[in-house]
């Protein structure tokens, strides 16, 4: 009478542990969105749907929103694809690690800081504009659809490239070795290795960038030139805050939910198939594509352009923030105990670090519930629900949150915890995107083997997933934390209890004409974010102890990994 090994249960090995926590999180998100929408509809009668096609204004708004988002996605991916491929081809060159950190930075920058940098480069008095007018003979005007798309590409292309790079680097090493041994040229390498690696990531990525651009607000207004550039988000704000027309706001929010939700549904339906080939440790290899001198020069030139595009606005922000930096730390000429900036930094970190951790945990639970059983509509709904925080307009979400959490808004400590929770929720879609590919990359063979050997629950996670997920987890943690650190919206939505966080401080300084101080705060925020991304990158790189390398299939094959 032999007992199956499976019965000496590993912690959390019940299938329910994989399914229910993720489902619970997803349903909480759905309840939240419904509460927000419900509150709006409650205030007035149900909106009249025909308003949508009868009003010329609403029609133009919907069409414009979708059009600029579409253009932004297309251009972001067009920039991101070659950049990711070059970075994958050239795994070792000086400054690669710094470049990756900078790419991670652009998305989490508060928009007002980034826009100020973009304006210094591409605005009427900008460096680039002078160059374009004097040398290229082109008359460049930032304000209009080109400014909107430019800003969206600046924010999203680096993010897209980062996720694509992770995808390409996640291609099974054996496959890449075979490609290298066969000496595949670029086209065939793309067909055989790169495309299959990014194909499962692409639909989700496109949906993510589309949603981000679709719901863009301040950037569209600042760079759009006038009310002809109005997104649905602006129109919702207008209905709620200006016209007090809750019905119209609800109607527009539903349109937004429907369009973005439909895209996510499609992306989720395409499915994220786990790779079929086992990822075994193999000797280091180098693909032929990218090793010739000519290829390296081309790659270098293309990458150089991208670096310029990314770096110039950051340099502008740096130069602008520098003068105020001294005053920020030495208010009266001497170092005073606790300048407001440091205070705000600590407060921001106290919110952002737990928020990052929470969103990563929630993302893992949601992914786990998606890996249970067949791809039923229920699990698909779970994965789409996780993206709700991006699709529901902040004002609507704020109303929902307010109604649900209201009794607990008492003291400022509770307020801080709530802000942390919501920040975690807002970061969830991004974190999920970082982890989705690597989590699904455990091949079928290994999984079946693990099932037979009874490597389940905690052990399965510890010995099979963790070595593969360590780096993506660190990156996801960096994004989760960074997004919360740069966040202004959530705190503003709720009313900040007590003292300011870094972004709130920045806006307060702006509101009180403290332009230099605000510029310095912006720069400081960027430096903190950079430090944070570097720290997490360090944590994500396994120490090169023998015990670790056997567990980690990637350390050997990729000398200078992201």
């Amino acid at each position, binding site marked *: 009478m032999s007992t199956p090994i499976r019965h000496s249960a590993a912690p959390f090995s019940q299938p329910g542990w994989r399914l229910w926590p993720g489902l619970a999180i997803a349903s909480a998100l759905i309840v939240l969105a419904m509460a927000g929408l419900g509150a709006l509809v409650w205030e007035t009668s149900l909106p009249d749907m025909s308003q949508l096609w009868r009003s010329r204004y609403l029609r133009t708004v919907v069409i414009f929103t979708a059009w600029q988002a579409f253009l932004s996605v297309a251009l972001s991916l067009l920039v991101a694809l070659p950049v990711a491929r070059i970075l994958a081809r050239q795994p070792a060159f000086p400054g690669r690690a710094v470049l990756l950190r900078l790419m991670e930075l652009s998305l989490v920058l508060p928009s007002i800081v980034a826009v100020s940098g973009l*304006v210094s480069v591409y*605005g009427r008095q900008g460096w680039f504009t002078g160059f374009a007018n004097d040398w290229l003979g082109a008359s460049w005007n930032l304000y209009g659809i080109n400014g909107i798309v430019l800003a969206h590409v600046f924010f999203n292309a680096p993010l897209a490239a980062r996720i694509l790079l992770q995808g390409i680097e996640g291609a099974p090493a054996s496959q890449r070795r075979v490609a290298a041994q066969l000496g595949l040229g670029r086209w065939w390498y793309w067909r055989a290795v790169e495309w299959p690696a990014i194909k499962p990531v692409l639909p989700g990525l496109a949906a993510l960038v589309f949603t981000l651009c679709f719901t863009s607000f301040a950037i569209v207004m600042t760079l759009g030139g006038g009310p002809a550039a109005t997104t649905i988000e602006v129109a919702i*704000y207008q209905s709620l805050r200006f016209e007090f027309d809750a019905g119209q706001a609800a109607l527009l929010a539903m349109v937004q939910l429907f369009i973005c939700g439909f895209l996510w549904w499609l992306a989720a339906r395409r499915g994220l198939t786990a790779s079929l080939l086992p990822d075994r440790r193999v000797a280091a290899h180098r693909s032929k594509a990218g090793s010739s001198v000519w290829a390296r020069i081309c790659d270098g030139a293309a990458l150089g352009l991208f670096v310029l595009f990314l770096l110039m606005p950051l340099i502008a922000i740096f130069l602008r923030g520098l003068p105020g930096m001294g005053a920020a730390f030495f208010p009266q000429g001497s170092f005073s105990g606790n300048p407001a900036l440091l205070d705000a930094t600590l407060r921001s970190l106290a919110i952002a*670090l737990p928020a990052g951790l929470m969103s990563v945990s929630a993302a893992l639970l949601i992914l786990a519930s998606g890996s249970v059983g067949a791809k039923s509509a229920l699990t698909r709904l779970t994965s789409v629900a996780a993206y709700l925080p991006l699709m529901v307009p902040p004002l609507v979400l704020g109303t929902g949150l307010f109604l649900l959490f209201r009794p607990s808004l008492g003291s400022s400590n509770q307020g801080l915890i709530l802000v942390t929770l919501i920040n975690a929720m807002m970061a969830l879609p991004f974190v999920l995107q970082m982890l989705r590919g690597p989590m699904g990359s455990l091949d079928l063979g290994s999984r079946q083997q693990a099932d037979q050997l009874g490597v389940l629950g905690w052990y399965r996670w510890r010995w099979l997933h963790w070595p593969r997920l360590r780096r993506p987890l660190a990156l996801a943690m960096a994004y989760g934390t960074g997004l919360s650190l740069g966040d202004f919206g959530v705190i503003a939505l709720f009313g900040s209890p007590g003292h300011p966080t870094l972004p709130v401080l920045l806006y*307060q300084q702006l509101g009180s*004409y403290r332009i230099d101080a605000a510029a310095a705060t912006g720069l400081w925020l960027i430096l903190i974010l950079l430090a944070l991304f570097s720290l997490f990158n360090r944590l994500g790189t396994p120490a090169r102890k023998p015990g670790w390398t056997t567990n980690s299939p990637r350390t050997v094959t990729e000398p200078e990994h992201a």
Partner: protein
Amino acid sequence: MLIRALTLLLLALASMPANAQKVSTLTIYTHPSFAAEWGPGPAVKEAFEQTCNCQINYVVLDSSGDILQRLRLEGKSSQADVVLGLDTGIMETTRQTGLLANHGTDLSRLNLPVKWQDKVFVPYDWGYFAFVYDTEQLPNPPESLEALIAAPDDLKIIIQDPRTSTPGLGLLLWMRHVYGDQAGEKWQQLKGKILTTTKSWSDGYFSLFMNGEAPMILSYSTSPAYHMAVDKTDRYQAAKFKEGHYLQVEVAALVESSKQKDLGRAFLDFMLSVDFQRHIPLKNVMYPATDLGDELPKVFDKLIQPTKALYFDPKAVTDKRRDWLNEWLDAMTR
């Protein structure tokens, strides 16, 4: 390691001692520029707390519209005792919620360009909307709204969106006041000069104007006071327009559901005292609601003095704003 550190941090955060709340607390809903470290909020709190056995608790919401929205959502169970930071554009809508109480404050101390006898709202500061210009880029600014509209299109200005910003709405009312039914046509003529229409005053002032993107921005006639008094520069000045300037009055009110109306009324009364008002000129960069006499900073003498204060009754604004906005949208998107 990381996880352990974070757990510690979380625990530390959760175990922070809650503030002992023995004295009565006056909860005030307000917006960021009032409550900021450099705004009047902290000094006012300190001054008022010395006169009462109480504590002021600011709840900072994003804008005056958010204050109204929060009040509506909470209805009769609102935690607010006082709302501070509404203005004449949104005042009437807030009154219509029926959630506010009469103030009973003696308004004879007020020193406003218009007569004020409202029973619910107490003004605490006021200012004129104006175009602020960079004297280095634009030595000779237009001298009237008409001249601005007639100027060649290479003169660029930055304005704010009336749907999202208070000064933006101010310009809409300003144009309407000066041009009446012709406002739409005038907007069309002005359109070529508008570089962009930003969401908020901060977006335009920080990202564009102070970056030298355009020589003129819609702001307040008092803005140069800050630059002169604190930045010590005369570079940024307000252009005085012959037609007059549109007036903004910022107000506060008592919430009907407040359980400490006496304390709330005491605060509204305190609002018109010198101890409150002296913080307005340089911290809120607006005119004080009462006559400060010699305490008014000298730089305020250097500001433009509009010949005429343009002002619509708040009720008219509430009735008409949607039509006027559509007129603007129509002119600007055609």
